[in-house]
């Protein structure tokens, strides 16, 4: 039987950590032009939100937050599968994944 770990850190630490991770993800989305790296930065942002939800769930002592994180993971997995398929299809047709070149839909 394993015992749960006592939470001794203030929860603000988790708030700050997930804010920093989220901002790094936003920075990556704005900075990189490779669509694959942008997908990875979106994953990073989703994970920072997951971490925040888990921390609130652990500090409040209820399970619902972790169930929501589970569903977020499911949606992220589906999103990555479809997004990467789209990327491969785009690469096959256009020959690049550079988002500055993929501007056909720009008005």
């Amino acid at each position, binding site marked *: 039987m394993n015992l*749960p*770990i*006592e*939470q*001794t*850190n*203030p*929860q*603000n*630490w*988790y*708030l700050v*950590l997930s*804010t*920093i991770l989220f*901002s*790094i993800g*936003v*920075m*990556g989305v*704005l*900075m990189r032009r*490779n669509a*694959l*790296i942008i997908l*990875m*930065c979106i*994953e*990073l942002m989703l*994970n920072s939100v997951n*971490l925040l939800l*888990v*921390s*609130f*769930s*652990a*500090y*409040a*002592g*209820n*399970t619902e937050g*972790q*169930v929501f994180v*589970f*569903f977020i993971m*499911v*949606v*992220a*997995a*589906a999103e*990555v*599968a*479809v997004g*990467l*398929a789209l990327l*491969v*299809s785009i*690469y096959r047709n256009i020959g690049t*994944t*550079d988002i500055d070149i993929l501007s056909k839909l720009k008005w």
Partner: protein
Amino acid sequence: MNSQVIFLLLAAISILSALFVVFSKNPIYSVLWLIVCFFSIAGHYVMLNAQFLAIVHIIVYTGAIMVLMLFTVMLLNLNKASEPHKSIIYKGTAVVTGGMLMLVLLAAMRSTELSTYSVPAATEAGFVQNVGMKLFTDFLLPFEMTSVLFIAAMIGAAVLAKKEVH
């Protein structure tokens, strides 16, 4: 080691690896650093008593999603040369924008007072038994719906990535 040291260590690893994801030139290195970042986040989940989520996180993210990413990098033949150098102004603007977002969020957080923090009792809310009970009683319908979502995503990915036959 007390939990503060472990938290600071894991936080340093996750922030540094996230920065390396954004700043490394080669997409392969970005993917590998993202795997490091995900492992450190799984460590945070263990520290938060969310053992079920920690294992699921490792299996889903580092096991499935990152393998998919690595295969895509291989298929697209991405390397350092595939991303031409951006101007320093563009990069600086992105860094300043991200930093300002972080500043605003942190400043908003500074004035909040968390009512949940009063050294909470150690909770077993994240153990497999409790999460499983919740998942198969209260959240049974959404849980079954996710299987439909996965089928749709799988078929969609197969259709999208298929070569068109004329």
